[in-house]
């Protein structure tokens, strides 16, 4: 489809309300999904929970082939299929739900910067750990430490990164940190680095309790 036609279709879709049967697709838990994909999927789930939009999670072995961009997770809403956190945030915004509308321009820029930081540092560390496992792991851990330090400083004692209301940055950070903390790896050093920062741990616990347990979804596996 041409760019114009795609824009037109998404405008039409934007007018429809969020359906009850919206679904999120990811690979099978346990035996198939990778560290980085799990983090991405959790981030999207947390984001949609924060927006108060119902979503059902379906695990399928061919999820990455079903996705239009080849990346997981993707959501199937009405007739539309959207993949990855960035486009999903845009899509949800077009439907009139947004977490970062209340922020000022400066804060929005700051949020984008922190999201890039997480993507560059934490995501790279996860990718590195799942594919290689060698001597340069020292440098990777350094980067992770720096990233966590920056996040911890920004968070301080606030409940969320931009004080009272959660934003997509909170969802993204939660997705990555929770995955790192809870996935069994051959090397525990990554999760040890994160555990050094108690306010990040509390942050993860808080989001898990508020958005996943309290909604009757039960503990995340």
């Amino acid at each position, binding site marked *: *489809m041409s760019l114009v036609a*795609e824009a037109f279709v998404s405008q039409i879709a934007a007018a429809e309300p969020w359906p009850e049967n919206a679904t999120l697709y990811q690979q099978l838990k346990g035996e198939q999904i990778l560290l980085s994909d799990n983090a991405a999927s959790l981030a999207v789930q947390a984001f949609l929970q924060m927006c108060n939009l119902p979503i059902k999670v379906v695990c*399928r*072995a*061919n999820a990455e*082939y*079903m996705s*239009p961009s080849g990346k997981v997770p993707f959501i*199937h809403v009405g*007739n539309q*299929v959207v993949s990855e956190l960035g486009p999903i945030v845009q899509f949800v915004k077009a439907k009139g739900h947004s977490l970062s509308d209340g922020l000022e321009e400066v804060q929005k820029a700051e949020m984008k910067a922190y999201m890039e930081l997480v993507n560059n540092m934490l995501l790279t560390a996860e990718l590195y750990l799942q594919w290689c496992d060698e001597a340069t792991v020292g440098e990777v851990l350094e980067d992770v430490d720096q990233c966590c330090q920056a996040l911890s400083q920004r968070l301080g004692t606030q409940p969320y990164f931009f004080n009272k209301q959660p934003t997509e940055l909170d969802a993204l950070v939660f997705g990555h940190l929770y995955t790192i903390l809870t996935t069994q790896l051959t090397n525990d050093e990554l999760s040890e680095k994160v555990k050094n920062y108690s306010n990040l741990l509390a942050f993860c616990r808080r989001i898990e309790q508020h958005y996943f347990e309290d909604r009757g979804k039960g503990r995340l596996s």
Partner: protein
Amino acid sequence: MGTVHARSLEPLPSSGPDFGGLGEEAEFVEVEPEAKQEILENKDVVVQHVHFDGLGRTKDDIIICEIGDVFKAKNLIEVMRKSHEAREKLLRLGIFRQVDVLIDTCQGDDALPNGLDVTFEVTELRRLTGSYNTMVGNNEGSMVLGLKLPNLLGRAEKVTFQFSYGTKETSYGLSFFKPRPGNFERNFSVNLYKVTGQFPWSSLRETDRGMSAEYSFPIWKTSHTVKWEGVWRELGCLSRTASFAVRKESGHSLKSSLSHAMVIDSRNSSILPRRGALLKVNQVELAGYTGGDVSFIKEDFELQLNKQLIFDSVFSASFWGGMLVPIGDKPSSIADRFYLGGPTSIRGFSMHSIGPQSEGDYLGGEAYWAGGLHLYTPLPFRPGQGGFGELFRTHFFLNAGNLCNLNYGEGPKAHIRKLAECIRWSYGAGIVLRLGNIARLELNYCVPMGVQTGDRICDGVQFGAGIRFL
């Protein structure tokens, strides 16, 4: 001495893989008469020697098996008939470009007064033949390279390789064929291939990489083939707008199947037969037995009857049907289901555009039946009789069929009822052109009827080209 040209008898029906049917042309056999003019027809003769000229790499044992019958001839007419049959069998092996037969009296010390010598003068095919074509299709150009090595090791083994390199897709196939010496209908072949297909009616793209091994053998008048095939299939969406039902089928799967097919073919030609019948039954049984992750049992059959009527016209009736039953709880894959509709199936409907569909993408069905009644007549006023005009026929047809998914929990009565409701059918007339013994072209005016919501029709003029028509 003068030479006598004798008109030969009807050729054997062709069944070898490389045999480009000689049709009903006459063959000539040279016979040299003796010095005394005698009535040779019923004179007892003995075939003393059979000579072969021109053998190179061909081994003796397969030749001996094919010409064994010539020695059994008792009189001249039988010698001519048996040597003609031997010539047909030698050509069927696919290793000779030309075979000429010469029958002469025996000369030499051990010659009997009624002894004959039969000489086969053969020209073997070259060791390697190649072909190169360029093709232009739907927004795609490709070059196709073909290589053939006939008679590789001297016993009619054949290796063929085809490679197609296109702007969008690349595909190739390698195949090895070996007949059993003396029994050409028993043969086995091994194939290796990668083919890609684009199916716009389902918004689906499929890439198959696979190998297969098959063994064919005759039992009385039927020909059976037993085959094992292993395919790695990759399905994908052809466009961003593919329906979600097709999107769900994307990904990789492995199919490993054993199948058995039986063919009885008494037609005189496979393209526009004048008489005879064809029954083809294909049973496929799958996975869980030989590995892979698709599991089903699939049955498919094809029946065709032809009868010649007055004024050189032919009446033909055909019936196709099939059923796919998944084993276990996984649903069937879109790549295994049946499709219906199109110029080679139910005319008047668009290609494969009948049956279950989702957002305009046709998903195929697990059970189908289709039938056709045809009347072929020569062109009115018979233009170009005896020449070009003979390749054309006028054609009146009636097609009907149905494609649906069955609920396998219910009994056979419910299945028949489901297949009998919502029948699509069409009628019309047109012209058929026969392309050698390989394919046919049709140009028809069609009127589709019984159209259900979701079907796509092609009423009016429809063009079709292919090998297998309903």
